[in-house]
């Protein structure tokens, strides 16, 4: 007995002592950034989450980078050119660049970086998109690489700024440590990663671009609780909050010590209708649901006004967006009439699956559609359950009677193909892709393919206008709204900006 008591006292003493010894983290030269979720990986090629990409951004670079005006600029490549076919691209690499672990950045490193994504056995989370169009990468000489594409691909350069194309140290990758210890070439390097608590990045004094402009340290923390984010900004525990919850926007605007930034976002929210399920296989029914949706009402009620009602499958910031479209004004009578024509004068019942955070949209639609006689059963689901249900094949969805799914998609500024192809292309029908309603339209498939291989921007955008019209007419989705990207900072913070879609860039920020 005595022995037990003694050991308990000892354990108690150890626990209390252990809990009181903590590392010192915050200081005046630290920029504190808080986001909604913990990083999913320290390897930019092994994850696809926007907020993780934001955290990794100060540490990694690609051959090409995006400037605050959203134009593409040289980064680890100094210049590039394509051959006449548009299939072979040659890049000149910046000389003298080193990874944070001392490994040289050269053509060999670039080849290894892309090879790991083309290797199907690696199973890295972000490889999929690259494999659809990239044939291979070869080293011409130590400072020159050549990319061979399978088809012409207009979004190629833009994609070089995204996760799978950011350069990780081949040494760290070979050692298998890059998933937990970031090693890139960026202006900041990883100082400390406490997976339950924070990530601290320190200035990379050897950076090829000279002295980094931002604070000495950047400390990232995270919480899923919106009111905690708001409080953290008020107390100064966080200098930057991304994304900032719309519910607290008015409070921040009224406080001179804080600053709210809103920019047009790229995520389009929609209800994907199961076109394999009756009566949603009838285009008139799908159109009726579009007419029965009060988009302005949803924007006001759910987004506190920080969104734009959607008139197109593309967001306004996406190249090719057509602002003249306005196919479905709110019109309950028109909806009823269409349902009558389709043989449902008394309406019908259907279901939708939605994740917790967007469940209010489901409730609003339930009330709106009821006016047209449509009885909507809203099934709220936790994220993991939702993604399993949403990505089922037609048979699975029929079995579970899933009539629709509420979600969003963001192609960012990387091209309309990244919005059209996963969401509306026949071959992207789930589970293969995010065409959750199994929409299939030969004309639209043709337009998507044609646009994807049209290098001339004007001609390509004209095709996308046709594609937007086709989607609107066939109504595989009830388009809801495009979210604005909201982030908030303490008033003194300068130099933080957001790439449409929510990726916050803080490497140049000062407080």
């Amino acid at each position: 007995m005595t022995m037990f008591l003694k050991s308990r006292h000892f354990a108690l003493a150890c626990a209390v002592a252990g809990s009181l010894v903590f590392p010192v983290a915050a200081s005046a030269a630290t920029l504190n950034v808080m986001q909604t979720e913990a990083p999913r990986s320290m390897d930019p090629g092994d994850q696809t989450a926007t907020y993780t990409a934001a955290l990794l951004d100060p540490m990694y670079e690609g051959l090409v980078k995006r400037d605050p005006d959203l134009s593409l600029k040289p980064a680890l490549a100094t210049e590039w050119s394509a051959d006449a076919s548009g299939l072979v691209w040659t890049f000149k690499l910046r000389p003298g660049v080193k990874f944070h672990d001392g490994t040289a950045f050269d053509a060999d490193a670039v080849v290894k970086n892309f090879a790991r994504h083309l290797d199907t056995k690696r199973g890295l989370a972000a490889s999929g998109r690259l494999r659809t169009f990239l044939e291979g990468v070869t080293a011409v000489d130590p400072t020159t690489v050549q990319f061979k594409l399978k088809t012409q691909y207009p979004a190629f350069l833009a994609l070089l700024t995204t996760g799978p194309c950011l350069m990780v140290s081949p040494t760290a990758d070979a050692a298998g440590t890059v998933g937990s210890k970031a090693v890139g070439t960026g202006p900041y390097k990883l100082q400390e990663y406490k997976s339950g608590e924070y990530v601290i990045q320190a200035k990379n004094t050897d950076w090829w671009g000279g002295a980094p402009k931002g604070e000495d340290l950047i400390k990232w923390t995270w919480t899923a609780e919106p009111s905690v984010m708001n409080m953290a900004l008020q107390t100064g525990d966080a200098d930057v909050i991304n994304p900032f919850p719309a519910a607290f926007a008015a409070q921040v605007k009224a406080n001179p010590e804080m600053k709210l930034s809103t920019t047009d976002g790229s995520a389009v929210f929609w209800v994907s209708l199961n076109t394999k399920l009756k009566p949603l296989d009838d285009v008139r029914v799908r159109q009726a649901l579009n007419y029965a949706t009060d988009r302005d009402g949803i924007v006001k009620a759910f987004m506190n006004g920080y969104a734009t009602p959607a008139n197109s499958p593309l967001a306004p910031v996406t190249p090719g967006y057509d602002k003249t479209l306005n196919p479905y004004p709110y019109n309950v009578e028109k909806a009823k009439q269409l349902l009558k024509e389709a043989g449902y004068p008394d309406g019908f019942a259907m279901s939708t699956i939605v994740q917790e955070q967007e469940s209010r949209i489901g409730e609003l639609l339930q009330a709106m559609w009821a006016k047209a006689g449509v009885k909507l059963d809203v099934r709220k689901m936790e994220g993991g359950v939702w993604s399993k249900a949403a990505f089922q094949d037609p048979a699975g969805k029929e079995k579970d009677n899933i009539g629709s799914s509420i979600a969003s998609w963001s192609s960012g500024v990387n091209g309309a193909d990244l919005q059209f192809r996963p969401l509306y292309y026949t071959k992207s029908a789930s589970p293969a892709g995010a065409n959750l309603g199994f929409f299939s339209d030969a004309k639209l498939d043709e337009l998507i393919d044609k646009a994807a291989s049209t290098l001339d921007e004007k001609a390509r955008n004209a095709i996308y206008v046709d594609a937007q019209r086709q989607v609107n007419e066939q109504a595989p989705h009830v388009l809801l709204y495009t979210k604005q990207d909201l982030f908030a900072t303490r008033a003194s913070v300068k130099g933080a900006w957001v790439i449409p879609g929510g990726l916050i860039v803080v490497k140049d920020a000062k407080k």
Partner: protein
Amino acid sequence: MKAYILKKLLALPLILIGVSLLVFVAIRALPGDPARLMAGPEATQEAVDNMTVRLGLDRSLPAQYASFAYGAVRGDLGTSIKSKLPVVDEIAERLPFTIGLAITAYLIAIGIGVPAGMIAAIYRHGWPDQIVMILAIAGASIANFWLALMAMNTFSVQLGWLPLLGAASWKSFILPSITLAVLPTAVIARMTRSSMIEVMSQDYIRTAYAKGVLPRNIYWSHALRNALLPIITIVGLNFGSLMGGAVVTESVFNWPGIGRFLVDAVRYRDYPVIQGVTLVAVTGVVIINFLAEMLIAFLNPKIRFD
């Protein structure tokens, strides 16, 4: 007694095997696919399939359990799907924070709950009793989550007295541990009250009064000592629910303990982490219950273990 302890110690591995099996099956019965979650919504089916193989989720369930159990016996709980770090290291880093929080919460709960319950018992049906009981009912019914947010807003945002988040200094302990202590304080106060009332009606207390023993001595030496047994039992049994409270409290306060770790792991279906944390938490609960039983035996020699 020795035989009893030995028997209990021998049962521990069996309990752990049972629990690990239960947790293993329960996690896999959860809808949601870690490979799909890790690969992200934009991933192709091919990428999801590759991820499934990489995570070893293509193997049969018995094979997966066997490798988990074999690893666990050797102190290896696998590698976190998300952070790519060994689960044992991840837990070891966070466990002191959770234990520290739980102990502080219990010290507060016992320090306030026992005297409050005693006062309520001594002034039974009087106003001190009513105040204590109203507070105890309120404490037992308030949602931890709401209380945490209110406390943060008042003491960190409005008054600026205490740190809002994280575990940067001893001051960081105050709000989370008080929030976590509210429920056990209420339970202990109620238990102490009823236990004291029962003891105070015993003959030997009446005898003590008759002999002229000071009421103060009767309360502390005679009544409380005998009333302690059910209190210790309830403290031991409530350790599990305290752990449950820690999950919520740690998440709200960004406390780097295993509770918050578990919440994140469930969100991403990080199977090795969920298994590891649950196994450690269950071991903790079993050990605490065991210690509580030992303590009861120590305090009450009348109890014999056969």
